[in-house]
């Protein structure tokens, strides 16, 4: 029988949130969104988030460029030729940092994080892994993360099923 490991759980949560913040800052944003949590989940050492994508034949490393693509597509849809993020971030000089203290995130990230933790709590023993975050993001119909998945031609229902399969595989 596997016993709950609160220290491991805290370490995973810390890794997930710190990683999401770093992804957001790297993209020039102060607060992470659902898409940054997903990127962070893909980097978790348990590997289940990446495997969920790979089960669908999708390359998880393409998510970052898919996020950028959906922003560019949205601007082109209203007749604006997008400016590269790198150019604008370079012009802004200093990088963006979230500052120290309490972790702050956008509503979409909060929704995904809560849903992922709730999903993890249904497991006995509870253990948060990347596939929980993938499953939580797959519930979202709209927003940046959902649009990025569509750019990657990933059906969110299929991704939810792949995440569930990963979680099942992790239990055995």
């Amino acid at each position, binding site marked *: 029988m596997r016993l709950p490991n609160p220290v491991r759980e805290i370490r995973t949560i810390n890794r997930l949130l710190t990683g999401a913040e770093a992804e957001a800052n790297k993209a*020039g*944003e102060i607060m992470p969104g659902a898409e940054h949590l997903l990127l962070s989940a893909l980097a978790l050492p348990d590997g289940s988030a990446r495997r969920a994508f790979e089960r669908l034949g999708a390359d998880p490393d393409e998510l970052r460029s898919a996020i950028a693509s*959906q*922003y*560019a*597509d*949205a*601007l082109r*849809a*209203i*007749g*604006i030729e*997008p*400016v590269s*993020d790198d150019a*604008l*971030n370079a*012009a*802004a*000089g*200093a990088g*963006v*940092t979230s*500052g120290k203290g309490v972790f702050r995130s956008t509503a979409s990230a909060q929704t995904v994080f809560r849903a992922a933790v709730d999903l993890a709590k249904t497991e006995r023993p509870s253990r948060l892994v990347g596939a929980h975050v993938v499953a939580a993001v797959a519930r979202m119909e*709209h*927003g*940046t993360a959902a*649009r990025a998945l569509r750019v990657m031609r990933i059906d969110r229902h299929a991704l939810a099923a792949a995440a569930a399969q990963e979680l099942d595989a992790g239990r055995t």
Partner: protein
Amino acid sequence: MVNLNEIPPPDDPAEALAAVIALRRLADRLERAAVAQAIRDGWTWQQVAEALGVTRQAAHKHHAQRTTDHPRKETP
């Protein structure tokens, strides 16, 4: 030049809202880049605030930590 006829119609709210998010993001980056350039050019926070239509405190709070350059000394 933005062609207003190409703006997504309200009957496609998903596309329109995605455009809103992308515009906000673009505006935020453009603001940061422009403020950083203004400060490098010697603008005071008062001048930056005036151009943005916000208070000096708001401009300073929002941007001061994000720029490594320092504005010229302001008279109180």
